[in-house]
């Protein structure tokens, strides 16, 4: 029978099907961090059970870590306690631990691929909804709750009903200044934040085929923002070139076996999806969000839709615009901003910093804007320095911080103050997400750069040399 890519990877990992219930799914790789794992370890202790395969779990600290002065003790005692718990739990159960200060430390969804933990055709979970990032490699990757973290630690399995399947095709040539982030925000604006709930998505079409691995990671990362558990892209030469030779990638004969498996990972020609959508890539503009969920996004040249055209009830829509301090029918262009954040598992990789730097080169940071540039890992941080981007950034009045999740969820000190506006390359614009009372506009690194040098929401295409 014809199978989709998703079917192939899922079915390979089903240990047992339960009549009238979920599948028991084997998990190849498990990533943990300091926030969603401590209670799972407490559960193991209270039940008196061990970690079944400690070599399949990797720990990194990222959610609450500071992004300056990482060599100093963490000042917040609660954060310090969580970091200590991750370290002691990892040590006790024999799990690789990349804590603060470790050379491999960084955002879990940035370091996983960098070190080859992420492999095509693998099942990958983490107590973090943006685990969907790893789907870029043709893996089934999704976020889980803490109870499930405990299940994976103790049995390397979780129990999940098999989701429905959706394919999203985007074909055509993307315009100049249109990035993978814009493609993802566009799709979410079309589907709404619940449009893919209950589905696992496969992205197909030449727009994704022509993307780099980093671009694909940005797209798959945002799958959760339309409600999908995850999204994936069939592995191709681009994928294999990325994976080959990384520290935890298979080597020698194991690589040959893995390669043979990777080559089977594509949707059969006549396989059937529960839902299929197709969009024209050439119609996508640089995107920006105007509301309090990632589905409330639009092309940057558009006006904020009126309630009649909005998803959901008028009361919810009014609450959202009221929180943002915006009105129906307004343009976003020219709106004053206070903060810019570049980073996160969505846009914290080297290509994102290259894109940001391409706009700010030869310009200067706007005076009344605070800009936080936070690399996703030490590798990204080193690349920024080695490629000379840091010199350009410094020249333009910007500073680079140290790796971590930072202002994406503002668990550390990187909080946008109440009422202030931030253009952010992260993934969520929920009320208070970036700090109590903060107002977030999600956008690409190019839109973030245009805002950083002008101090207002600006169409980056007006600053790109080949277009002006």
């Amino acid at each position, binding site marked *: 029978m014809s199978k989709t890519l998703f079917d192939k990877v899922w079915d390979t990992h089903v240990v047992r099907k339960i009549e009238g219930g979920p599948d028991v799914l084997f998990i190849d790789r498990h990533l943990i961090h300091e926030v969603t794992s401590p209670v799972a370890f407490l559960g193991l202790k209270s039940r008196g059970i061990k970690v079944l395969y400690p070599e399949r779990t990797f720990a990194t600290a990222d959610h609450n870590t500071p992004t300056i002065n990482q060599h100093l003790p963490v000042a917040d005692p609660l954060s310090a306690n969580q970091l200590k718990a991750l370290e002691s739990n990892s040590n006790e159960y024999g799990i690789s631990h990349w804590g603060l200060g470790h050379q491999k430390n960084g955002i879990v969804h940035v370091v996983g691929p960098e070190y080859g933990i992420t492999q095509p055709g693998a099942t990958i979970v983490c107590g973090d909804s943006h685990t969907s990032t790893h789907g870029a490699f043709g893996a089934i990757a999704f976020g889980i709750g803490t109870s499930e973290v405990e299940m994976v630690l103790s049995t390397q399995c979780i129990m999940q009903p098999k989701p429905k399947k959706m394919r999203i095709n985007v074909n055509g040539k993307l315009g100049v200044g249109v990035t993978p982030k814009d493609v993802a925000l566009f799709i979410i604006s079309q589907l709404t*934040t619940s449009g893919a709930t209950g589905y696992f998505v496969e992205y197909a079409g030449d727009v994704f085929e022509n993307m780099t691995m980093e671009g694909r990671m940005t797209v798959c990362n945002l799958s959760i923002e339309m409600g999908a558990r995850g999204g994936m892209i069939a592995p191709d030469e681009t994928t294999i070139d990325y994976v080959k030779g990384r520290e935890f990638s298979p080597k020698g004969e194991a690589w040959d076996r893995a390669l043979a498996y990777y080559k089977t990972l594509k949707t059969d020609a006549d396989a059937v999806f529960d839902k299929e959508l197709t969009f024209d890539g050439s119609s996508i503009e640089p995107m920006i969000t105007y509301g309090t969920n990632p589905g409330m996004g639009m092309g940057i040249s558009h006006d904020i839709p009126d309630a009649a055209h909005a998803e959901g009830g008028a009361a919810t829509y009014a609450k959202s615009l009221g929180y943002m301090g915006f009105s129906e029918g307004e343009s976003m262009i020219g709106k004053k901003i206070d903060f810019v954040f570049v980073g996160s598992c969505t846009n914290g990789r080297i290509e994102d910093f290259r894109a940001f730097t391409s706009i700010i080169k030869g310009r200067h940071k706007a005076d009344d804007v605070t800009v936080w540039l936070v690399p996703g890992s030490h590798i990204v941080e080193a690349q920024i320095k080695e490629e000379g981007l840091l010199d350009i950034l410094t020249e333009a009045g910007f500073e680079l911080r140290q790796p971590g999740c930072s202002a994406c969820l503002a668990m550390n000190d990187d909080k946008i103050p109440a009422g202030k506006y931030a253009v952010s390359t992260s993934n969520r614009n929920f009320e208070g997400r970036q700090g*109590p009372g903060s107002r977030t506009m999600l956008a690409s690194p190019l839109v973030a750069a245009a805002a950083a040098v002008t101090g207002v929401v600006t169409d980056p295409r007006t600053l790109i040399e080949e277009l002006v």
Partner: protein
Amino acid sequence: MAYDKFNILKSTAVPLPIENVDTDQLIPARFLKATERVGFGDNLFRDWRYNPDNTPKKDFVLNNPVYSGKILVGGKNFGSGSSREHAAWAVYDYGFRCVVSSFFADIFRNNCLNIGVLPVQVSPEFSEKIFAAIFADPNTELEVNLPEQTITLLATGEKETFEISPYKKDNMLNGFDDIDYLQSIKPEIEEFALQLPL
């Protein structure tokens, strides 16, 4: 973690007719710093419930003494966003045993089922009826019957059935969790692991 068995719940309900209630509202990230599962109920809907100076916001439903009960009735797409199980813990710890909505986000629903909060998905029409009934009379009671898979507005007798997998239903009725089950098939898992491609 063990939780109380769920059978038939008869209770008044707290209405929250807002759509797309996300997990950052259920429990903001800055309250995720505990290493034990205690005290999350205090911070349920923290920023909707309290002013920055920690005084209660009078217009928020949890601060309105007229509404109480073990059932929370939310708008469409309840629980979207993060995978933080803390959101479900906060709901449970506050004292809710059941959340009713016309649509749930996937991970939140799953987390609820894993910790003993019953997510009951009703039709948009029935959701409207429930909201109307509670706003008309805050003392109106709902009955959530897990064995029968029904939810009933007791004042009028109007009822709807809801979906739950037989496996999860059995777990909730008995207070079991998935780890109990997975532990019981460990030898099968270890054998399975030997033939994986990666």
